[in-house]
């Protein structure tokens, strides 16, 4: 027989003002199982809590119900008190007779009646509760970071510097991401490569970081603290340990393909180094463009390589790791140019996108930092920048604002002016969004010092006429159409989630938002967390972001990871699903509905992974066989609560 103690709090007059405390105490005294019933003015006070702990000892109570305020306020207070008296925390339940009763009702008699029903319900709930201990499980003190852009680099360094092992996976042959392609960065105009390369080198040298470039995530399984990851390392056909960077191979390679790093403004060989600053500093043989995968066909590079670093027999490798947390920082890419034909992109060589313009500005770029037209290498004297190329256009393109374009376009105009002193820059814009430290001042400098002409309006068409690019647009401020004869047009293309994000999301079993970016667990309070515990997102994989934001999120995600990795054991609420295998027929319906992948079929029976289960109970309500239920939220408890709530 259970010995249940019942306590009711006056909460000053908050409860006692409406609820007839004495009547509740008396009524509960006679309720089956309740052996002790009393009230106190403030149960949550120290003397109030002592009343409970003393009664547990003196009256040999094994379960306790407290009718007071909402459990969100003091459930943990009272559960701790009960624990201190030697009972399991689940032997304490709260009836909320303040927020859900005394504060919302005015009729004393009926509020008292409701308080009694709520109290009886809590007795029924506690009666059915089992002693449960939090579920502990070990943590692999290692993190996986996916994506080697600035976000991934920063997150890896923060984790590594905190003493945790990191595996950094990058799909390209080198880390650095888009930031290494940039010229200067707004609003300070410091050189992007100069500030990034030290971090890249640090990554490659760091004893805690295992860098896997030219690699992709193959499979992710497991759960927080215990993920299992399979990574596929694609063959580079060049042994980085042997390669001495003599560059002889590229000289003999007969193949010329567009260079991704320069966004096709230049070409590269089939065997190549992505950029002079590439980390790891080694060559990669792009097997898709190499004609000599059958070495007889070509094999010239291998012939000239003195150190025999080229190995055509290299095979893809599958590497397996266990990690405790994962940070996905897969970054962005520019909107597909095929979507932007009305601006002549792809048709006219002098209509370029913003990243291409970055390369033109870059000292390491194809023009050595001189701004020249791709078509004839002449200096453009009139240049048009078109903002929101693909952004903020829900009908045809992306509905969202790509956020960084306003600032980098201002920077582009400024850099152009610094380069071509007699040139004129025009910027078509919808709004200028320059929120950020020093951002507005930067834009003003572009306008005032560099005489950039900002035109508020959209461009309808760009076409070529007599060697000039005719830009047709409208200035909505003066209400007139505008035609500019430009030498060059730069499109501030919308940023999109990187191509692999969708596939990675599938492997990570998380959802994407409507635009294809990763979905954070809460837009405000959990900006770098996913719905899967132990999995974090950072940077422009979540939404378009500039560098400082990416870095901040990277450090945020790293710190969140550390909250897991720094634990010896993680604990999880034990109110999880439990399967009655004798009833389960293995129909898979619970597996279908579980939002956490906590259920699976094993030997044709549902099996709960208690660490993944959050105890939502959707499986229970779906199971036709009543073969699954949530511990301490059993159907029997609910059945009895329903009865008690109706006065039975």
């Amino acid at each position, binding site marked *: 027989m259970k010995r249940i103690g019942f306590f009711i709090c006056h909460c000053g007059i908050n409860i006692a003002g409406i609820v007839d405390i004495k009547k509740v105490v008396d009524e509960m005294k006679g309720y089956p199982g309740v052996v002790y019933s009393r009230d106190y003015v403030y149960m949550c006070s120290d003397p109030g809590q002592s009343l409970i702990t003393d009664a547990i000892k003196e009256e040999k109570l094994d379960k306790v119900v407290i009718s007071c305020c909402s459990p969100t306020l003091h459930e943990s207070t009272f559960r701790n008190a009960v624990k201190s008296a030697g009972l399991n925390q689940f032997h304490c339940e709260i009836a909320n007779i303040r927020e859900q009763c005394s504060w919302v009702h005015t009729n004393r008699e009926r509020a008292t009646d409701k308080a009694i029903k709520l109290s009886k319900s809590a007795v029924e709930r506690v009666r*059915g509760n089992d002693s449960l201990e939090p579920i502990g499980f070990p943590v692999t003190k290692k993190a996986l970071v996916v994506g080697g852009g600035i976000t991934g680099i920063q997150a890896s360094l923060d984790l590594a510097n905190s003493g945790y092992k990191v595996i950094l996976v990058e799909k390209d042959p080198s880390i650095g991401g888009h930031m290494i392609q940039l010229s200067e960065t707004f609003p300070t105009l410091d050189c992007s490569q100069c500030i990034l390369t030290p971090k890249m080198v640090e990554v490659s040298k760091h004893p805690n970081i295992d860098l896997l470039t030219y690699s992709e995530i193959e499979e992710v399984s497991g759960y927080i603290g215990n993920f299992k990851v399979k990574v596929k390392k694609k063959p580079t056909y060049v042994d980085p340990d042997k390669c001495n960077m003599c560059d002889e191979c590229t000289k003999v390679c007969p193949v010329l393909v567009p260079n991704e790093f320069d966004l096709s403004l230049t070409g590269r060989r089939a065997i190549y180094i992505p950029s002079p600053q590439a980390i790891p500093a080694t060559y990669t043989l792009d097997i898709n463009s190499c004609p000599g995968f059958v070495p007889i066909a070509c094999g010239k590079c291998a012939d000239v390589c003195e150190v025999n670093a080229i190995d055509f027999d290299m095979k893809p490798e599958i590497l397996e790791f266990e990690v405790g947390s994962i940070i996905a920082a897969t970054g962005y890419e520019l909107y597909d140019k095929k979507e932007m034909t009305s601006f002549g992109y792809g048709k006219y060589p002098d209509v370029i996108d913003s990243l291409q313009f970055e390369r033109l500005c870059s000292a390491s770029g194809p023009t050595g930092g001189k701004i020249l037209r791709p078509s004839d290498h002449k200096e453009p004297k009139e240049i048009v920048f078109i903002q929101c190329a693909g952004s903020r256009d829900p009908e045809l393109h992306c509905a969202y604002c790509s956020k960084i374009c306003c600032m980098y376009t201002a920077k582009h105009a400024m850099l152009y002016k610094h380069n071509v002193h007699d040139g004129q820059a025009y910027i078509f814009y919808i709004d200028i969004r320059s929120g950020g430290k020093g951002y507005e001042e930067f834009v003003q400098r572009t306008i005032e010092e560099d005489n950039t002409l900002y035109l508020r309006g959209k461009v309808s068409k760009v076409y070529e006429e007599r060697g000039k690019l005719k830009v047709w647009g409208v200035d909505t401020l003066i209400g007139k159409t505008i035609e500019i004869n430009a030498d060059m047009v730069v499109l501030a293309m919308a940023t999109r989630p990187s191509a692999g994000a969708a596939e990675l999301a599938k492997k990570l079993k998380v959802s994407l938002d409507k635009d294809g970016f990763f979905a954070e667990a809460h837009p405000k309070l959990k900006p770098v967390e996913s719905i899967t515990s132990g999995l974090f997102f950072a940077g422009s994989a979540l939404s378009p972001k500039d560098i400082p934001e990416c870095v901040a999120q990277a450090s945020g995600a790293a710190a969140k990871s550390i909250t897991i990795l720094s634990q010896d054991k993680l604990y999880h609420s034990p109110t999880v699903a439990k399967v*009655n295998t*004798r*009833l389960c*027929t*293995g*129909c*898979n*319906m*619970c597996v*279908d*509905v579980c939002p956490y992948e906590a259920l699976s*079929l094993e030997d*044709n029976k549902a099996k709960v992974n208690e660490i993944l289960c959050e105890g939502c109970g959707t499986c229970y309500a*779906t199971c*036709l*066989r*009543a073969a699954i239920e949530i511990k301490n939220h*059993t*159907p*029997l408890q609910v*059945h009895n609560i329903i009865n008690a709530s109706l006065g039975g």
Partner: protein
Amino acid sequence: MVHIEDIKKEAKRLLKEKKIKYLIGYKRGTNGLTALPTFIKEPEDTDELIWEASCIQNLSRYLVEEKKEQLKNKAENTLPVGIIAKACDTRSIAVLLQEKFLERKDIYIIGVSCEYGGVIDQKKIKKKFRGKKPEKVIFDKTNNLLIGTKFGNIKVPAEEILAERCIECKSTFPLLCDDVFGENVKRKISEHFNSIKEIEELPAESRWEFWHGHLEKCIRCFACRSVCPMCFCTECVVDPIELAVTNESTAREKAEKVKWIERSTTATDNIIFQLVRTLHLAGRCIDCGECERVCPVDIPIRLLNKKMEKTALEKFGYESGFDINMPSLISNFKDEDPQDFIR
């Protein structure tokens, strides 16, 4: 046209070549017109097989039983069990496969198309042929059935004696079959949900009177549940079929069974039993009509399930028994599911 001789030949071959463990089929009934289930092990016994419009029963129920025996005895099934299945029967097998209760490799489906027909309604026949003792029903090529009696064959338009569910049937051609007899014909169907229209159009109070009046009669013989291929739970939520206990079950587990309804045959508890059954069959019932056929007190159970079938189709675009790979009706959702009833 389906020729029974072809089916017999195939059945004989399967048994002779030991392709199947045994065959579940239909034989001539000794008691009235309805065909009876038969379980044939020996090739020579295939001669008793029949195929006509009196083959009402959904034999897939016996596959469920076979599976349960296997699970109980932890026996590995070596050979598939053969079954003669109408279109609706194959749909119930499809649901059993969808819910992973059966495995495809364990069944050998001999599908038989109902073509223009279907099966008869015993009650309609009884009314129509009072005193004439019909002995068999023969499909005609047309929309007629021939009823064999002592006084010779009597031609009847099919819709006069076909079961309501057959008149409303979506597809008379079986699915998932290993062998199939008969043709896939397109036939005219007036209304898939004709039978519930009348009740739906009644005012609420009359609907209540209708259902209360029927369910009040329930004697809890559980024939509806027993005959249903979808009711394969070990322990029924509302009233146990058997207790899923073993010698390892704790006393508390045994004591704490929830009693959602009592043993007393009150109308309320009868209604709750049928409502729960109906909800549990939502998206799973394939309208074989067996529950209604076997009910000794003539409760039109099928009309409850039909309502769920209609709701599933109209509200969620879901049809049961056609796709074994999709999640079930209630273990799935679409963003655009209706929610105008929610405040």
